[in-house]
């Protein structure tokens, strides 16, 4: 029996670990580790090891389905695509293309994301977005503004070269586990690790200095640290004068953030803020690693800018061991953003309102009437539905019914939609609300490129055939486009031909051709076919005309929801090691479910005593938006007054608020007020 090893990229997080799928007779029978992978050295976390369980899950969607009464009826592909095309066309005819929205998938390939935004825009709709809106939108907005590029500035292994690693709002030990091997190497060489998080997470085990801050107070902490750096003369004067703008206004703005003041707001000792600031500034090469704890706030963009400010005034950017590391979540969220599946950007981060952008793509796509952006973001699309402005949604590989905050409102919106089409691999909660469901191929059943958080673009081979009548997302989008009269613009024999088009339209991907994508992929920007790729960004200058980055003063603002007498506990949300995001994949993986089978809430034991809740009790958690049941886990990991719930199980987002960051439109998942009662 012939066995083949097919190279693949893990479908879970954005670390982009590679591994081989063992294939025998068109069946994926095992995994072999890819020992020469640059980021992982062959390692693979618990989710990656369980990845094959998704492929053969009983729940896989196999046939196109249309809603019929209380249930579903099977359709042929012809019928299904005709139906979708007809309904979409009718709505576009009646109320214009702005009344239709598209959600592209951060789990789909670059080629597929490129096609979804192309379809939306060729139809005249500016409303295309992806789930980056719920996760790193503040990074996209904030870092584009301050340093001209919204991506991790250094490669993952480069963390081993850092001598001070400041991890804020990231539980990488559970969510990006392979980063820890590089951090351990840095520590072996004497690096200092600082961790700021409201919880004593597994990541905090790596810390030399642990800052257990109150949720939502990151700007106070970061400004407090910047205050120390400025006032103790620890700034990098040469870097500031040669590579930045706006220092004097920025330094002035820090007046109100003396360590004592920052300490009062953040709830940690002033001395710790001073120590952390000094260590970060003095070390010869320092890195800041951050994720959802920074972005998922109504002040998310300010949080990101505050991080950027700290890196700029100390000159810790643009060289080995020194950089800003936003840890992206989904396996291809970086790519989805690079491909312009965003309301405010066309491919390559060209601004959607810029007439030059529209001209360029009109020419490239052979179509007139491309819509000027910015379109509605995914969060605003939900508003639009409730206001009657958006009548149809086409959702690819996303589960807003579980992933968005304030689930009740989202479900109301999706239920009230005139037409909802969902393209996915599983019957998610969102698919259950659809009019038409189209079965898609999983990552191992198609080919294309994925871009990891370190900007590494990797080609993944098709290992096995999809089940039933499921097709690759590329095939589905192109067939649908043909039904909508766009057949000419969507004629692609394979994924490589889409990549070829991307090479010509996205400058950073220009040299990332199919032929050059061997075993390790290529790191963008890669502007030509001789270019080796760019592991470290901003080495020569920032992506602005004069090459200078911006120092932008940010003020601390309290989170959009605070505790009250009615809701006295502060709920913060996050993830655990064996699950991934809204759980549509990991909750269908037996080996992961056996390890974390249900929704729980972490409660400080002293709070639990007052609530008369014992470890393991079933409790009801309630906020102003809804209520859900959870199992109590008593732990000192959270401070008094703070509780934590993972969002992998439906229920957590019934509680979260939809207060948003005004610039990035991201909901505030990480701060909500709640109360707990024991269920008897």
């Amino acid at each position, binding site marked *: 029996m012939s066995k083949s090893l097919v190279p693949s990229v893990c479908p879970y997080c954005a670390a982009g670990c590679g591994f081989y799928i063992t294939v025998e007779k068109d069946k994926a029978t095992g995994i072999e580790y890819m020992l020469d992978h640059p980021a992982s050295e062959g390692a693979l976390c618990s989710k990656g090891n369980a990845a094959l369980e998704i492929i053969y899950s009983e729940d896989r969607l196999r046939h196109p389905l249309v809603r019929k009464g209380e249930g579903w009826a099977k359709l042929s592909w012809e019928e299904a695509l005709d139906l979708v095309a007809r309904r979409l066309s009718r709505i576009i005819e009646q109320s214009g293309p702005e009344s239709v929205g598209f959600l592209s998938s951060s789990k789909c390939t670059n080629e597929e994301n490129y096609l979804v935004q192309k379809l939306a825009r060729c139809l005249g709709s500016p409303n295309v977005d992806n789930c980056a809106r719920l996760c790193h939108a503040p990074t996209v907005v904030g870092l584009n503004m301050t340093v001209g590029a919204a991506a991790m500035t250094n490669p993952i292994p480069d963390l081993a070269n850092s001598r001070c690693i400041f991890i804020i709002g990231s539980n990488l030990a559970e969510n990006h*586990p392979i980063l820890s091997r590089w951090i351990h190497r840095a520590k072996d060489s004497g690096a200092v690790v600082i961790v700021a998080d409201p919880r004593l997470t597994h990541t905090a085990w790596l810390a030399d200095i642990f800052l257990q801050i109150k949720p939502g107070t990151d700007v106070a902490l970061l400004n407090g640290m910047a205050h120390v750096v400025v006032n103790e003369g620890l700034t990098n004067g040469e870097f500031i004068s040669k590579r930045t703008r706006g220092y004097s206004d920025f330094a002035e703005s820090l007046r109100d953030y003396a360590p004592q003041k920052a300490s009062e707001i953040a709830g940690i000792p002033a001395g710790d803020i001073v120590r952390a600031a000094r260590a970060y500034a003095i070390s010869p090469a320092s890195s800041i690693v951050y994720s959802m704890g920074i972005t998922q706030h109504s002040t998310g963009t300010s949080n990101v800018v505050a991080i950027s400010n700290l890196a700029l005034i100390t000159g810790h950017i643009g060289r080995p061991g020194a950089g800003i590391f936003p840890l992206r979540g989904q396996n291809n969220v970086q790519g989805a953003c690079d491909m312009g599946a965003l309301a405010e950007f066309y491919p390559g981060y060209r601004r959607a309102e810029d007439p030059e952008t529209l001209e360029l793509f009109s020419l490239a796509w052979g179509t007139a009437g491309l819509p000027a952006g910015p379109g509605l973001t995914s969060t605003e699309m939900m508003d639009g539905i409730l206001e009657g402005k958006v009548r149809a949604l086409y959702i690819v590989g996303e589960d807003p019914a579980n992933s968005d905050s304030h689930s009740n409102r989202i479900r109301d919106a999706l239920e009230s939609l005139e037409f909802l089409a969902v393209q996915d691999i599983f019957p998610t909660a969102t698919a259950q609300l659809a009019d038409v469901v189209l079965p898609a191929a999983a990552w191992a059943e198609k080919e294309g490129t994925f871009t990891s958080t370190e900007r590494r673009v990797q080609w993944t081979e098709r290992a096995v055939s999809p089940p039933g009548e499921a097709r690759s997302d590329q095939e589905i989008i192109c067939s649908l486009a043909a039904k909508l009269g766009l057949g000419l613009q969507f004629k692609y024999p394979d994924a490589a031909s889409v990549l070829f088009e991307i090479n010509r339209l996205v400058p950073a991907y220009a040299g990332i051709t199919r032929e050059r994508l061997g075993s390790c992929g290529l790191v963008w920007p890669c502007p030509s076919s001789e270019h080796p790729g760019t592991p470290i960004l901003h080495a020569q200058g920032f992506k602005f005309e004069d090459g200078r980055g911006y120092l932008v003063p940010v003020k601390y603002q309290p989170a959009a929801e605070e505790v009250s007498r009615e809701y006295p506990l502060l709920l913060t949300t996050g993830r655990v090691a064996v699950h991934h995001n809204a759980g549509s994949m990991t909750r269908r993986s037996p080996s992961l479910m056996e390890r974390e089978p249900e929704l729980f809430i972490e409660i400080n034991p002293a709070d639990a005593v007052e609530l008369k809740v014992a470890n393991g009790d079933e409790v009801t958690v309630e906020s102003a938006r809804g209520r859900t049941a959870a199992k109590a886990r008593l732990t000192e990991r959270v401070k008094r007054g703070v509780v934590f719930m993972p969002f992998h199980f439906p229920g957590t987002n019934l509680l979260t608020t939809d207060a948003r960051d005004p610039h990035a439109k991201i909901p505030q998942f990480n701060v909500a007020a709640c109360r707990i009662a024991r269920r008897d």
Partner: protein
Amino acid sequence: MPVYVDISRCIGCRSCEVACQRVHEGRGHVNVHYAGDHAAVPVFCHHCQEAMCAKACYTSALYKDGERTAFAVDKCTGCGLCRLACPFGVVWTDKLAHKCDLCSPRETPTCILTCPANALTTDYESASRRARARAAMMVAHGGRR
């Protein structure tokens, strides 16, 4: 030689557990234990020199093969004595016995290859060196890291 754990590196991600289970058809032999909120460690077979599981086994299904405590599944009757004989509770029985076999005949145990934190090794020298360096550091810092 068993697999050694550098406890300072374990991040409690349970990848070793899932990987071991995957390569052994659903019956894994690693268990990650959490010590309160401050540490985690996978517990698995020590491949003891004086293997008590092998002593208890009356069919010689469990036996010493050099440094490794090996298991010949075709001799196992599933009696359950080995599970009770192991002082560390790392022999499992589920119809038949199973325990860490160092993934033989593969060259390197799967847990070592998969560990994201690079915390596992069969190299006694390096594991011992790291442990002692850490202990020296602790002592010098009066019990703090």
